[in-house]
């Protein structure tokens, strides 16, 4: 049996390649495609590049349209943001909130997604997915009232709770489609071999779904890192996250474009670095459940 499959795979793989190459269109289409792709990439990257440039300019250079691309770069803006405005604190806050809320959401979400996938609990899944649909403001008013009476507003707990609320539905959604694609036979044979159902989940299914959990975890981290509205209302001066800190930057320094762009880069760069290293996971998370139709 093994011999047969081994001989089949190498033979089947190279075959489709030449056919695809032939299927490509005429020369005019090739040229059009290159031009169109370059345009798409420029459209997506140019604004970010502009922000990067501005973050290295003095405000005098930003106001001088003759110095759009040629100027003497300065790191003054970054020094200003990181040291004088103490952005290191906000970076750590953001990391802490995103990390803890993601970890807790995984602990709650992965078993839930497993049960919902295996027992096809679609109505129960709908309850969790409702959280994606409800406008956040309608929850914030009661939350704010309750949590401020509990003297919790301005603490990390309430931020983590609110970010878990964003992360959990995402994780359940991604993990459900992941468990759906995992064959049931693996667990069944483990149970035949003497494991209990929960034991089979713990020793067989969980280790096999590490990739899925990475996908869900990374995506939930990104969404928590970027979340603005919940932190805007529920964070205090000590627990402020980066997006809120940047928003505050505008109100008292609306003309300091260089500093503002440096602050915007500071919040964007960590998440982009993470994204570049984990591309594969992000793409599979964003497209989870999309192709089942």
């Amino acid at each position, binding site marked *: 049996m093994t011999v047969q499959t081994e001989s089949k795979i190498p033979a089947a793989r190279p075959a489709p390649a030449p056919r695809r190459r032939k*299927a490509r269109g005429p020369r005019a289409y090739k040229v059009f495609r290159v031009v169109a792709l370059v345009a*798409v990439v420029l459209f997506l990257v140019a604004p970010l590049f502009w922000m990067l440039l501005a973050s290295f300019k003095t405000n005098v250079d930003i106001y001088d349209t003759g110095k759009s691309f040629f100027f003497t770069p300065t790191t003054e803006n970054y020094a200003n943001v990181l040291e004088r405005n103490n952005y290191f604190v906000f970076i750590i806050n953001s990391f802490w909130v995103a990390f803890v809320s993601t970890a807790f959401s995984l602990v709650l979400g992965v078993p839930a997604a497993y049960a919902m996938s295996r027992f096809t609990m679609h109505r129960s899944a709908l309850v969790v997915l409702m959280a994606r649909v409800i406008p956040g*403001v309608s929850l914030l*008013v009661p939350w704010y009232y309750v949590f401020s009476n509990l003297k919790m507003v301005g603490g990390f707990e309430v931020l983590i709770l609110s970010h878990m609320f964003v992360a*959990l*539905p995402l994780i359940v959604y991604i993990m459900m489609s992941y468990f759906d694609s995992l064959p049931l036979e693996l667990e069944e044979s483990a149970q035949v*071999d003497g494991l209990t159902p929960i034991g089979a989940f713990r020793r067989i299914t969980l280790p096999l779904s590490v990739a899925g959990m990475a996908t869900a975890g990374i995506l939930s981290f990104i969404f928590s890192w970027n979340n*603005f509205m919940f932190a805007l209302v529920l964070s205090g001066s000590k627990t402020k996250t980066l997006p809120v800190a940047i928003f505050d930057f505008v109100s008292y320094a609306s003309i300091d474009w260089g500093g503002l762009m440096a602050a*915007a880069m500071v*919040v964007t760069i960590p998440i982009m670095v993470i994204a570049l290293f984990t591309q594969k996971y992000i793409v599979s998370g964003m497209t989870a459940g999309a192709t089942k139709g």
Partner: protein
Amino acid sequence: MSVLNPPRSAPARSAGRPPGPRANFSAWANRHRKWLFAAPAMIFVGVLIVFPLAWTLFLSLTDSQGSVRAASEFIGLQNYITVLSDVDRFWPAVGRTMSFTGVALACEVVLGMCIALLLWRPFRGEKWVRVAILLPLVATPVAVGMMWRLIFDPNIGFANQLLGLIGIPAQPWLSGQDTALGTTIFMDVWQWTPMVVLILLAGLTSLSEEPDEAARMDGANAFQRFFYITLPLMLPTVIVAILLRGIDALKTFDILYATKGKGGGSFHEVETLNVYAYGLSFDYNQYGLSSAVLILFFMIIIGTMWLLTMRKKAANK
């Protein structure tokens, strides 16, 4: 395999004595694992949703003004009447929410489909294009809002510099009463078209090639093959993309608040329902009124979703 490696003799171990409390618990846990696994997450979300929603529903029937006047009175449907007859703020906000969502979604789906088709077949440099697609998706919306504020600044912005190069007069962009909403739609398109591309690309690569090949044999050209073969097959995926993106577009907050601030600008030019409700609650403490707005908003979202799911079911058949 199970013959060579028989089940561990669990019965033999407990043969002599009755099962301890630990074994009892384990058996109970295994029997009820369905709810044991699902319940914590459901309770967490339920408590954080059901109770606030009930509260919002209750608040919408009172004249609560938050901490300013703690004791609020029950005033029945008065808030709804006030809101529904408000042609200055509420109805324009409904209109803006609808046009923002509609225009942004239309652009994103059409552009997204074009880009997905460009990326469909393998090519050199694919990796770089994928990186470019990922960047807007993960960029922090508030930072993106700040970035566009600089680019669309009427005096020093790069957008007007570009227009100047081809001889078009400078535009007010975000600061213009008529142009602000369109400019924010542009930002939304920049940030979220990549997500539509990813979803549609996943759909395209999972299509089987036979129908396309058969049509090619029959002499159909690229446009005919797209409109008669690929597009109908892709319809369920397109609806998933619209559904996922539509929900978020209706609720857009970050970029609008980051670029135009409270009340959607001094003339409320980008004030959507979400921004309006946020302002009523947290800038003016009009909790009763904002709750009524939110309940209506929620009904709009559920209605839209329900319609789209119906379409998707129909498309799947």
